[in-house]
Each structure stands twice: as structure tokens, then as C-alpha cells.
């Protein structure tokens, strides 16, 4: 078994999916959580000067989706056929597009200008959420409302979306009320015993 270290900030964000994949597969790993104060000192040791980075026997791998996919492939959470894996990837990339649209809103959430937060929630977050989660809702239904976005077993996109929704709801309650199949999928995912266990013991963080 290789040694794994996952370096990320103290939060869920783009690193949590990989922590959960490692935990679900019962793979020991060093959960290297870097504070904002320490980040400047650690930055140059990361290949793309960003986090997360996965270290496999000390060799670094950057970029959150590359990491999640690599671990999912190692542990069996990437779909059962190449075409299924490709659909998991497509949803992951659509999430990345949605996430980049949401950035102005996320930045405002980090500040204390309440008016700006409200404005951006209306002008940025709501349209982006509607566009992406409508795709997810249709996808979950077309897949048979079976608790998964792709195929009939847990994949990293089920885990990644479910985790993101938990963060989103802290700032925008009922953000996903219009997407019942996705909400049910999330409930099913986070109540899986090993995930439930991880979620209960992980540090509580703002994002």
C-alpha cells in the first residue's frame, strides 16, 4: 500500500471529496490541513502553487479533480464502464464550470458586506445554481432516481456534489429546494455509514 498525504486548507471545499474517498476505502492517509497563516510558507513546495495536492509515496499530484479521479479509480468509485467513468467526469467538469461562475459570490461570503452578499446571491448564485442543479436533477431522474448520478453504485461525483451542497446550505438555506431528486441523492450519500462516521468526526469549518 502506498503512503498517502492529502494537503489542503482547513475546510471541505475542493479537498473533501478526496478525504472521503480515502476514508471510504479504509485507506490510512495523512490529512495535512494547512492554515491561512502557514500557506505562504508551504506554497512553493506545491507543483502549481495551489491546493489540494495528493502525495503518493512522496510524489505530488495537483488539481482537485485529477486527485479525486485518481483515488476513485484506485478504490472503485469511478463507475463500472469507461462510458460511465466519462459521464462522471463530464458532471465533474460541469461542476467546475458552475463553481467558477459562483466565485464572485463565494468571495463576497468571505467578507462582511451584507448588501453585496444579497446582490450576488440574486444575480450570480441563483442563476448558476438553477442552471447546474437543473442538469443534476434531470441526470438523477434519467439515471432512475436510484440514489446515484451515474450507474448503480457510488461514484466520486455523488460524494463531491453531496459535500458541496452541505457547504452551500450554510450560507444559502434551501438553495436546492427545487431539486428533490438531488436532495434525496444527497441524503442517501451522507447517510452511508462510513461517510456518516467521517462527517460526524471531521473538524467543523466555515466552508
Amino acid at each position, binding site marked *: 500500500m502506498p503512503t498517502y498525504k492529502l494537503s489542503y486548507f482547513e475546510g471541505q471545499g475542493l479537498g473533501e471529496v478526496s478525504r472521503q474517498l480515502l476514508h471510504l476505502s479504509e485507506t490510512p492517509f495523512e490529512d495535512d490541513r494547512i492554515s491561512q497563516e502557514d500557506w505562504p510558507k508551504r506554497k512553493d513546495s506545491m*507543483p*502549481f*502553487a495551489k491546493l489540494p495536492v495528493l502525495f*503518493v509515496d512522496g*510524489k505530488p*499530484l*495537483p*488539481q*482537485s*479533480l*485529477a*486527485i479525486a*479521479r*485518481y483515488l476513485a*479509480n*484506485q478504490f472503485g468509485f469511478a463507475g463500472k464502464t*469507461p*462510458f460511465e*467513468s*466519462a*459521464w462522471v*467526469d*463530464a458532471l*465533474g*467538469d*460541469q461542476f*467546475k464550470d458552475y463553481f*467558477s461562475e459562483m466565485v464572485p459570490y463565494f468571495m463576497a461570503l468571505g467578507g462582511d458586506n451584507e448588501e453585496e452578499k444579497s446582490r450576488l446571491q440574486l444575480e450570480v448564485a441563483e442563476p448558476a445554481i438553477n442552471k447546474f442543479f437543473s*442538469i443534476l436533477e434531470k441526470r438523477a431522474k434519467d439515471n432512475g432516481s436510484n440514489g446515484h448520478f451515474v450507474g448503480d453504485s457510488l461514484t466520486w461525483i455523488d460524494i463531491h456534489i453531496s459535500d458541496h451542497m452541505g457547504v452551500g446550505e450554510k450560507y444559502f438555506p434551501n438553495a436546492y429546494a427545487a431539486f428533490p431528486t438531488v436532495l434525496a441523492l444527497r441524503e442517501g450519500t451522507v447517510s452511508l455509514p462510513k461517510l456518516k462516521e467521517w462527517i460526524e468526526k471531521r473538524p467543523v469549518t466555515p466552508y
Partner: protein
Amino acid sequence: STMPAYKLTYFNGRLRAEVARQLLYLAGVPFEDVRVRRPDWPALKSKMPFGEMPVLEVDGKPLPQSFAINRYLAKEFGFTGKSPFEAAWVDAIADQFKDYNIETRRLFLVLLGMIQGDKEQLLKDVGIPARDKFFGILEKIAKENGSNGHFVGQSLTWADLLIADHVKTVNILLPGFLDGFPTVLDTVKKIESTPKLKEWIEKSPYSKF
């Protein structure tokens, strides 16, 4: 087993579909290369799984998102590196390229005349910093990989194709812009001299992007 039927649908440009076209051509696999004219796009949009192109159909089953398409074809035809870790590094370089694209989007839209903007200001504030960050990384990667004509491993991967196609666009729109990254430029030259790829590039319609 019989070969599936492949159909790739995109605009008449390189941008997000060229790598997929190249992978199919390099593999010697016939495919329907559908190029949608701009006026015909609005009527097609709602038929696409995510309302966008490119879309790959495999025996009629659609797959959206250019990187998912690229990776799927690359895996089928052997262009994802020689190990899972190499394949993951190909993915990481591609995603870093996507981040750089997001940062430089406005600049390239202005250069293509698709939106109004101050080219010089965008170059100074956005283009040059993003270039230095991303191409600085690629220069280092190419050198550490042995300046062997590939960004990852010892054989052609879809990351090589992705970067080479973008460098072609930059050379058209901003000649000399990448002169500070000689190993990258040399790597791209080597990639483009791959025989079947050279053949594809020579017979493809010219496109600025």
C-alpha cells in the same frame, strides 16, 4: 468486437473539439465530424445534454464536456500515459490549462473580435501574468520530463495535443508571446511532427482558433 460509431458535434473551429478529432484520426478510427454553423446552433442547443458543445456520440449515446470526451477517447486509443499516476498528471495539466483559459478568456475574446475591450490593458493585467504562471509551470514540467517532446511520460498524451493546439492559436493571435518558453515551443514542434498528426494538421481547414 466491432468498432463503435463515433460522431463529434461542434462549431467549425478547433478550440474545444480539435483534440478529440486528432485522437480519432491518430487512432485511425472513422468518425462523423459534424461542424455546426452559428445560425443553426440555437435550434440544437436544447438537444445537447448540458446545452453546449462539443458532444461525442458513441453508438448514438451522447457524452458532453470536452475533457471528458478527450479522456474517454484517449483511454480507448492509448493516449493517457503508461500508468494511473501518469494519467492523473495528464489530467492535472489539462485542468491547470483550463484555469489559465478561465483567467484569459476576456483577452482572447477581444483578440478574436468577439467582444469589445482594451487589448493592451488586458494583456498587461491578465494575459502576461496568466501566461507567466501557466507557461512557467509547463516550461519546468517539460524540462523535468527530459525535454523529450512530451509533457508527461515518454509517449504522446492528450495533454500534449491540448497544449500544442492552444500554442498554435497563441502563435496566430499573439506572435512572439511565448518566446520566453523555449522548451514548451520545442515540445510543441516535436508533438506537431508526429506523422499522423502532421497529416491531420496539413489537411484540416485553417482556423484562427
